[in-house]
């Protein structure tokens, strides 16, 4: 008999590993491709940021239990690639906004009685998740802009904000699409 890992540990390993993997895919494949195809379009961030899809799906599924793994994965990546010397508090704001943006949006939805759970049969759930990705991206972008404030010229603000929001929303959509294709291929392979 195989010893079973506790559910919490499985969840942390799953979310962290998928988040890290997709971040590396964006950094090593998507962003360089974007720079090759349209170097002037968006120089400051990826136009398809897949990890935001992980934030959305994980928080929708696991609610508050997704916070720790997302915080852990985002902190590791932020520390490695984006941490700026100087104000530690601003870096922490950026980490927290990235990890908590979807949870905060879901709390606002819940407060407004907007039910995007599966028990609400009157909505399209995947479209709701893309919407959740879009709204939560606003919080994520606000936190990041606060953290980057002094290091970026004000003439770039609008472009960076737009790139962040487009990247997060498209990232959520592409992430859902990849997951759907994965489940579909798995089902078709089993049926053969």
């Amino acid at each position, binding site marked *: 008999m195989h010893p079973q890992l506790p*559910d919490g540990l*499985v969840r942390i390993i799953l979310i962290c590993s998928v988040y890290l993997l997709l971040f590396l895919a964006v950094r090593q494949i998507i962003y360089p491709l974007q720079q090759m195809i349209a170097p002037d379009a968006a120089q400051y961030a990826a136009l398809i940021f897949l990890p935001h899809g992980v934030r959305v*799906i994980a928080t929708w*599924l*696991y609610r508050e239990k997704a916070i720790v793994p997302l915080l852990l994965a985002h902190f590791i990546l932020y520390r490695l690639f984006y941490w700026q010397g100087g104000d530690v508090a601003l870096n922490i704001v950026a980490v927290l906004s990235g990890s908590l943006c979807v949870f905060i949006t879901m709390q606002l939805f819940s407060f407004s009685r907007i039910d995007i759970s*599966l*028990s609400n*049969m009157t909505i*399209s*759930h*995947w*479209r709701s*998740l893309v919407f959740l990705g879009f709204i939560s991206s606003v919080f994520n972008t606000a936190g990041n802009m606060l953290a980057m404030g002094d290091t970026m010229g004000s003439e770039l603000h609008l472009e960076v904000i737009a790139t962040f929001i487009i990247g997060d929303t498209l990232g959520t959509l592409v992430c*859902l*699409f990849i*997951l*759907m294709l994965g*489940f*579909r291929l798995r*089902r078709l392979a*089993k*049926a053969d």
Partner: protein
Amino acid sequence: MSQLEQYATLKSMLHSMERDLGLTELSSAEKAILSAMSTLQTALASSEYVSSRNLKSHALCADLPNPTFFRGLAGLLEKQYLVLPEGRSKGVYRLK
């Protein structure tokens, strides 16, 4: 929610995406049964199954004629969307 329920929730959401994108090969009866199943299963423990009687009385399946409903169940079993408990050939089901 247990891991299995979370998996069923995710699968159901992705199935609705497949359906919206026109990629699914399911009949309308099968889609109704699947949607009803995911709602009913969410309220159950991971080891429990949904009975065909409960499924048939769900709002999404109540209007389906009996032969269509049971053909739909058989189709979903064959396509491996649903599973039976070991040793049973019909009566209670879960999402795979």
